[in-house]
C-alpha cells in the first residue's frame, strides 16, 4: 500500500494506492492556506478509513509542500516529476501531458526526448487566473464553462498574466460585450498562454492527456485546447490526483503516523521573515489617527424634499461605479458606491432611478461623467459633460485642500497620481498594466484567504510583525505570501504586509519616489483603497508625513465630476441628462461586429440606446463613427509606413530574397532592398504585422519575457517561408549607423542578435537558405569587402566589384530615405506651426510605427487634432550633448536628443512609447524624463505590449492635453 499527498497552491489531495497501484482512497480539498492543519487532519482521517495504512510507504508532492516535507520527515517528490511517473504508469503511450493547477501550468513531453516545462515566474497562474476572471465577470466558476459553450465571437485577451487580462476584459465589460464571448475568450487566453509560453517551439501532438482542476472541471477549456492544437486529448479518470498518485508511486519509505502528525501539527516555519514596524503600537494611537482623519469631511444633506439646483456627477470606474448628487454649495445630497458587475449602463440607470424616486421633482442643472465608462454613459444617458478622470480627481481634491501639491488615488484597478504645480497638473503617474495590483489586489487576497476585505484589512492594524512583501504584482505576491506563511507569519502580519505592499507599489513602482520631499507636503489621498485604514496608515508611515483623506475618498471622481458640472453650467439652464420618463423607455442593445473599414479590422461593440443614440466601442480610430478616414497628413508614423510600401520587388536572376519586416528592418529595409536588388535578387518583405501573422510564429518563441516586437519576428519569418522565399536575409548587427549623437552606436542585444534566436528555434528555417551573418554597416569602407566574404559563401558567383557597386547604392538609398523622412518631418512641423496645432514627438524605436505594435496610438493621438512626428525627425536638430547615462545605442541617443529639442519648443510635447520587457528603456525613460523635467516639460510614457488598453492611453493623452492647455 502506498500513500501520496499533493499540496498545491490552493488545494490538498491525498490518495492511497493498493499493491496493484489501484486507487482505493482519494480526497480533494481546498486548504485556505492552512496547510499544516489540513495535512494533519487528512492523515488522521485516512488512518481511520483505510486499514493498515500505517504500513504504507508515503511521499509528498506539490509546490506548497516542500518545506513541510523536509521538516516533518516525509519524502518529497517534485510535482512535475510525479505527474510524469503517474502518466507513464496509468496511461502508457502518452506523448504529452498538459496540466493546469491553481497557479502552475505544465507541459510534459514524454516521448521523443523527455522534456518538462513549467510556467515562468512571470507568466501568471492559470487556475487562479480563471478564478479571478470568474470573479470579475461575477459568475460562479461552474457557470463560466457553461457560458463559454454559448460563445459566438472571441476577443483577444492578453495571455500574459491575470493583471493584464483584467485590463483587457474590464473595458470589454464596460463596452457591453457578451459574457459568454468573454468567457470563451478567457479560455482562449489560457490556451494561448500555455501553448505560447510553454511549448517553446515543440509541437504538441500524439496522445495528449489533460490533468488538473481547471481541465477536469471545464469541458469547454479542453475543447479550446483541442481546437487550437488540432488533437483530441483525453481527460482520464482521477485526473485531479495524478500528482498525488505519482508521489505515492515514488514512495519508498514508511512513516510513523503519530510522530509525523504531531510534527506536522507543530510545524512552524523558521519564523525568519523580513518584517516592518507595526502599523499601530496601541489602540490609543489608532483612535487618535481616526480622529485626525475624521476632520476632512463633506456635509451630508437630505435629497428628499430638496428643491434647489442639483448637480449630478458619475464615475464609471473599472471595478466600481460611483454617483453623487450635490447642491449649490457642494454639499452631498446623495451618493452611491456600487460594485461594477460588468455593465455600467445598468448600474447608472439604477442609480438615476433611485435619485428620481427619492426626489421626483429634482432640478438637475448639469451633469458630468468620468472614468473608464465615460463615453458609453455619456451617450447612453445624454450626460452634459464628460471629463477625463485626472481632471475630475484634481477638481475634487482642490475642494478639500486648495493648495494641494500631490494627489494620489488608489482605486480598484488604477493608481493615479498627479503632481500639482502652480495650480495645474504638472506631472501624471498612472500605473502601467504590469503593476496594477491595487484595490482589487487586496480583495483577491482577502477572498483567497477566506475573509471579507474589510475584516481582512482590519486584522492588520495591530499586527506585530507586518511581513515585508516588497512591491510586486499579484502573481508574485501569491508566492511571497505562501513563503511568508511557511516562515511562520500570521494572518495579521500578512494583512498588514499586503497593505504596506500596496503603498510601496504606488510609491516606488508608479511614482518612483525616493523620498517624501519629492511629493511635497500637501498631499490628498483618495480612492476606495484609502478608505482602508491599514493602507492609509501604511502610506503615512512610509512617507513620514500626515495626509488628508476625505471621508468621501471613494467618491472623489464622481464628486469632482459634479463640481465640474456645477462650474461649467454656472448654475444656469437645465441638464440634458435622461429624466425619469426617458429612463422608463430606456433600451440598451448590443451588437458585435467587425469594422472592416481598414486593415485593422477592429472588433466593434455597437451599443444602441433607442432614440438613435448609439455608442461604438473597440474602435481604434473615429472612422466607424464619422465614416471618414483619419487624416494622415500630419502623421509621421503613417508616412513612414507608406514610404516602406513604395519599395516594390523587382524580378532578378538570383531568385527571391525575403526580408522580415520587423525590428530594425523598419529603418534598414531601404538599405538592404537596394543592396540586394542591385545584386539582382527579387527582394520582397513580409507584410506589416497582424494578429494572424503573430500567431503563425507564436509557438516557436523561446523566451516569454522578450519584447513583443521581437516575438513578432517569428511570425514574419514564418510568413516569408510560407510565401515561398528561397533565401531569407536577416542579419545580425552589433552596431548601427553612427549618427554621432552619443558615445557609441550599438544596437540593443535583442535587435542585434535576434536572428540567432530565429535560427535556433524555428524548425521550418531549414527549408530555406537563411542568412543571419554578422555585418558591419557602421564601417562603410570595410563593408563591401566583408559583405563579399560573407555572401560569397552562399552565392559563389558574386564578385567583389558587384558588391562594391551595390553597397554604394545601398548607402545612397539609405541617405535618400532618411532625407525623405527628414523633409516630411520638417513639413509637418512647419504646417502644424502655421495651423497653430500642437506637435507631439511620439518617441520610440523605428519598429514602433508597426500598427500591431503601437495599436494605432498614433491615430488615436492625431484624433485629438495633434500633429505627430517621430523622434528621428527632431533628434538631428540638436548638437551632441552630455547625458547622465552612457549614451551608447543609436536608437536611444535619438530619444535623448529629441527630448532636448522638445524642451526648446513651446508647441511640442514628447510621448515615449516603451515596449514591455525592454530592458534598455529602464535606462532611457528616467533620462528622457530628467531632460524634459529640467525644463518643466511633462513627461508621458506609454507602455505597450501584445495587447494594450487604449482606454488608459486615452486618459493619459487627454490629461496631458488638459494639463498643457491649463498652462
Amino acid at each position, binding site marked *: 500500500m502506498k500513500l501520496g499527498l499533493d499540496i498545491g497552491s490552493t488545494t490538498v489531495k491525498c490518495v492511497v494506492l493498493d499493491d496493484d497501484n489501484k486507487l482505493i482512497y482519494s480526497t480533494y480539498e481546498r486548504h485556505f492556506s492552512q496547510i499544516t492543519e489540513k495535512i494533519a487532519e487528512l492523515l488522521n482521517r485516512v488512518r481511520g478509513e483505510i486499514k493498515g495504512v500505517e504500513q504504507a510507504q508515503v511521499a509528498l508532492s506539490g509546490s506548497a509542500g516542500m518545506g513541510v516535507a523536509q521538516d516533518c520527515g516525509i519524502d518529497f517528490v517534485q510535482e512535475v516529476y510525479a505527474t510524469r511517473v503517474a502518466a507513464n504508469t496509468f496511461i502508457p503511450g502518452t506523448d504529452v501531458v498538459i496540466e493546469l493547477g491553481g497557479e502552475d501550468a505544465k507541459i510534459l513531453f514524454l516521448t521523443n526526448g523527455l522534456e518538462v516545462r513549467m510556467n515562468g*515566474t512571470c507568466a501568471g497562474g492559470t487556475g487562479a487566473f480563471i478564478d479571478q476572471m470568474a470573479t470579475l465577470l461575477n459568475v460562479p466558476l461552474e457557470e463560466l464553462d457553461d457560458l463559454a459553450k454559448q460563445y459566438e465571437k472571441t476577443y483577444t485577451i492578453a495571455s500574459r498574466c491575470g493583471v493584464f487580462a483584467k485590463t483587457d476584459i474590464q473595458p470589454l465589460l464596460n463596452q457591453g460585450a457578451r459574457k459568454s464571448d468573454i468567457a470563451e475568450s478567457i479560455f482562449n487566453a489560457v490556451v494561448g498562454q500555455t501553448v505560447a509560453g510553454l511549448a517553446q517551439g515543440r509541437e504538441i501532438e500524439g496522445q495528449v492527456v489533460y490533468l488538473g482542476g481547471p481541465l477536469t472541471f471545464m469541458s469547454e477549456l479542453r475543447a479550446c485546447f483541442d481546437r487550437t492544437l488540432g488533437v483530441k486529448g483525453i481527460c482520464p479518470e482521477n485526473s485531479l490526483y495524478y500528482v498525488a498518485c505519482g508521489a505515492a508511486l515514488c514512495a519508498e519509505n514508511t512513516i510513523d503516523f503519530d510522530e509525523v502528525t504531531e510534527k506536522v501539527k507543530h510545524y512552524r516555519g523558521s519564523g525568519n521573515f523580513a518584517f516592518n514596524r507595526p502599523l499601530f503600537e496601541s489602540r490609543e494611537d489608532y483612535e487618535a489617527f481616526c480622529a485626525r482623519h475624521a476632520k476632512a469631511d463633506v456635509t451630508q444633506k437630505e435629497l428628499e424634499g430638496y428643491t434647489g439646483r442639483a448637480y449630478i456627477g458619475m464615475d464609471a470606474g473599472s471595478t466600481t461605479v460611483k454617483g453623487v448628487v450635490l447642491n449649490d454649495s457642494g454639499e452631498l445630497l446623495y451618493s452611491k458606491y456600487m460594485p461594477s458587475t460588468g455593465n455600467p449602463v445598468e448600474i447608472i440607470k439604477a442609480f438615476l432611478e433611485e435619485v428620481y424616486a427619492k426626489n421626483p421633482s429634482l432640478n438637475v442643472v448639469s451633469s458630468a461623467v468620468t472614468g473608464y465608462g465615460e463615453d458609453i454613459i455619456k451617450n447612453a444617458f445624454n450626460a452634459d459633460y464628460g471629463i477625463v478622470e485626472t481632471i475630475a480627481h484634481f477638481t475634487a481634491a482642490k475642494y478639500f485642500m486648495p493648495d494641494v501639491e500631490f494627489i494620489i488615488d488608489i482605486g480598484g484597478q488604477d493608481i493615479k497620481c498627479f503632481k500639482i504645480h502652480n495650480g495645474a497638473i504638472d506631472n501624471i503617474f498612472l500605473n502601467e498594466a504590469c503593476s496594477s495590483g491595487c484595490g482589487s489586489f487586496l480583495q483577491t487576497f482577502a477572498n483567497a484567504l477566506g475573509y471579507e476585505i474589510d475584516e481582512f484589512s482590519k486584522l492588520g492594524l495591530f499586527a506585530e510583525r507586518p511581513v515585508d512583501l516588497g512591491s510586486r504584482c499579484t502573481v508574485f505576491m501569491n508566492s511571497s505570501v505562501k*513563503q511568508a506563511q511557511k516562515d511562520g507569519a500570521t494572518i495579521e502580519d500578512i494583512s498588514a504586509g499586503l497593505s504596506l505592499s500596496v503603498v510601496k507599489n504606488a510609491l516606488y513602482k508608479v511614482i518612483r519616489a525616493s523620498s517624501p520631499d519629492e511629493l511635497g507636503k500637501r498631499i490628498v489621498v483618495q480612492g476606495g483603497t484609502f478608505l482602508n485604514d491599514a493602507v492609509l496608515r501604511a502610506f503615512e508611515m512610509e512617507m513620514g508625513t500626515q495626509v488628508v483623506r476625505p471621508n468621501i475618498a471613494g467618491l472623489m471622481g464622481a464628486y469632482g465630476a459634479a463640481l465640474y458640472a456645477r462650474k461649467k453650467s454656472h448654475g444656469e439652464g437645465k441638464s440634458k441628462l435622461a429624466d425619469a420618463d426617458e429612463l422608463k423607455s430606456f433600451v440598451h442593445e448590443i451588437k458585435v461586429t467587425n469594422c472592416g473599414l481598414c486593415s485593422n479590422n477592429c472588433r466593434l461593440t455597437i451599443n444602441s440606446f433607442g432614440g438613435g443614440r448609439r455608442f461604438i466601442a473597440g474602435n481604434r480610430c473615429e472612422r466607424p463613427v464619422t465614416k471618414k478616414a483619419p487624416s494622415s497628413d500630419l502623421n509621421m508614423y503613417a508616412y513612414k509606413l507608406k514610404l516602406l510600401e513604395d519599395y516594390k520587388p523587382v524580378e532578378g536572376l538570383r531568385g527571391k530574397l525575403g526580408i522580415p519586416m520587423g525590428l530594425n528592418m523598419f529603418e534598414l529595409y531601404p538599405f538592404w532592398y537596394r543592396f540586394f536588388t542591385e545584386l539582382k535578387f527579387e527582394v520582397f518583405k513580409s507584410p506589416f504585422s497582424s494578429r494572424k501573422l503573430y500567431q503563425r510564429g507564436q509557438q516557436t518563441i523561446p523566451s516569454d519575457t522578450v519584447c513583443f516586437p521581437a516575438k513578432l519576428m517569428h511570425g514574419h519569418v514564418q510568413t516569408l517561408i510560407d510565401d515561398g522565399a528561397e533565401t531569407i536575409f536577416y542579419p545580425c548587427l552589433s552596431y548601427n549607423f553612427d549618427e554621432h549623437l552619443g558615445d557609441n552606436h550599438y544596437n540593443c542585444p535583442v535587435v542585434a542578435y535576434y536572428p540567432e534566436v530565429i535560427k535556433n528555434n524555428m524548425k521550418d528555417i531549414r527549408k530555406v537558405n537563411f542568412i543571419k551573418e554578422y555585418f558591419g554597416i557602421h564601417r562603410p569602407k570595410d563593408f563591401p569587402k566583408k559583405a563579399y566574404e560573407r555572401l560569397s559563401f552562399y552565392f559563389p558567383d558574386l564578385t567583389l566589384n558587384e558588391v562594391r557597386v551595390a553597397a554604394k547604392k545601398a548607402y545612397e538609398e539609405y541617405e535618400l530615405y532618411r532625407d525623405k523622412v527628414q523633409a516630411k518631418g520638417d513639413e509637418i512641423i512647419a504646417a502644424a506651426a502655421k495651423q497653430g496645432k500642437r506637435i507631439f514627438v511620439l518617441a520610440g524605436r523605428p519598429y514602433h510605427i508597426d500598427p500591431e505594435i503601437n495599436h494605432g496610438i498614433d491615430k488615436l493621438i492625431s484624433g485629438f487634432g495633434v500633429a505627430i512626428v517621430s523622434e528621428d525627425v527632431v533628434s538631428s536638430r540638436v548638437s551632441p550633448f552630455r547625458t547622465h547615462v552612457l549614451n551608447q545605442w543609436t536608437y536611444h541617443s535619438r530619444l535623448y536628443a529629441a527630448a532636448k529639442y522638445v524642451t526648446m519648443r513651446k508647441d511640442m510635447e514628447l510621448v515615449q512609447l516603451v515596449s514591455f520587457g525592454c530592458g534598455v528603456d529602464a535606462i532611457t525613460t528616467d533620462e528622457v524624463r530628467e531632460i524634459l523635467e529640467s525644463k518643466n516639460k511633462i513627461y508621458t510614457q506609454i507602455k505597450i505590449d501584445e495587447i494594450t488598453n487604449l482606454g488608459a492611453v486615452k486618459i493619459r493623452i487627454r490629461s496631458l492635453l488638459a494639463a498643457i492647455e491649463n498652462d
Partner: protein
Amino acid sequence: MAELKYDKKTGRLLFTKQMKREGYTILMPNMAPIHFRILRSVFQSFGYNCELLETTGPEIAQTGLKYVHNDTCYPALLVIGQFIHALQSGAYDVRKTALMITQTGGGCRASNYIFLLRKALKKAGLEFVPVISLSFGMEKNSGFSLTIPLIRRFVGGLVYGDQLMLLSNQIKPYEVNKGETMALVERWSDRVSSMLIEGRGYTLEEVDENLHKLTKDFSKIEVNRTPKVKVGVVGEIYVKYSKMANNGLEEFLAEQDCEVCLPGLMGFASFKVDNRIEDYKMFGGNRIKYEFCKRLLDYVTKLETLMIEAAERFNFVPPHCYAHTKELVKGVIGYGSKMGEGWLLTAEMLELAENGYENIVCTQPFGCLPNHINGKGAIRKIKEVMPNANIVTIDYDPGAPKVNQENRIKLMLAVGREELKKRTEDKSTENT
C-alpha cells in the same frame, strides 16, 4: 580632506591622487567570494585601501529598489543597493570613501551600471562620493590606474581563484572530514594573497609552481566517491556567482547532494579580449589594437594551460581550454554575439554537458536581454547537439520567491537523479 575635482569635459567627479594618498576606503561588491578576496589583496598591494562589501539581507534589494529604476536588471539593483546601504549605514566616513565598479563597455545594459550608480548617489545626497570605473580606459582617474604590473597580478589572482573554486567544488561533496576542503581553500587564499601583496607569485613560472602545490594539496584530501548528480551553473556573471543574487544556489545544490561546477572567470576574461579580435575580423578596425589583444589572449591562454595541466596531473576534471569551448559553439551561435556573456554562455552549457555536468542551471536576472538570445534562445539547439543536456532556466529578481526557484531546480534534479540511477544500475549489471 581631499578637494573634489571634476572632469572638465564630462563633469564627472574624479578619484584623485590625493584621495588615494589620504587612504580613502574603496568599497567593492563581492561577486565571487574566493576570487574577490584575492583580488582585494592585489589592489591593496598597489596602495588602494579596498574593502569588500559582505553585507546581505533584504534591505539591500529594498535600498536598490528605492534608488534605481525598478525594471533595471537585478545585479544593478543589488550592487547599487549594497553600496548605498553601506554608505548610509554609518560604518564608513562617507567623505573619505570611494566606490569601485566594473564597466565592460559592451552593448548590454551593464555598461550603464556606473551611471545608474551615480544617479542613485545623487538621489541619496551622496554625489560627493567618487566612483571608480574598473575598465580598460573607459573612464580615467588620476588616483587609480590599471598599470601593466597591476593587471598581471590581477590576472594571477583570477587564476588562483578559478583553480581554488574548481578544486573545492570537485572535492567538497565527497570529503570524508567535513570542512577540510574549505579550510584548505582558506589557507591557500591567504597564502596566494600574501604572495601577491609582496609582489610575488604572478609570473608564469611562479603560477605554475603554485598551481602544482595547490592542486597537490587538494588531491590529498580524503574522499569517499559516491555517485552524485553533477550540476553545472552558468548565467549572467553576477547572478551566477553571487550568493546574494542567486539565493544561495550553490548551498542549495550542495544540500540536494549534488556536485556543482561553475565555469571560471578566466573564460570570461578570454572572451572579453577575444571579442575585440572577432570584431576586427568581422568588421575591420584598428590593426594595432587587434595585435595587442591577440598577445593578451595568448598570455591568458598560457595561464589557462597551466591550470588545466595541474588539474590533470592530479586527476581532477579540468576545465576545457578556451579555444575548445569556442569551437563547441560553432554553428550554434555566431562569435559576433558578444553582449553580456554572449556566445560564451551557450558554449559553457555545451562544455558542461560534454564534461559530464549535463544537468545545468542557467541563471539570469529577470528580463536579461542577452540571455534571451544566448540562454533561453539557444537551449533548443543545445539539446539538439547534446541530447543529454538537462537544463533549467531560472530568473532572479527582487520579487522572485525562492520557493518557486527551488521547485523548478528540483524538477531538473529529479530527472538528473533518474539518469544517474539508470547509469549506476547499467554499470552494476555490466560488472556482474
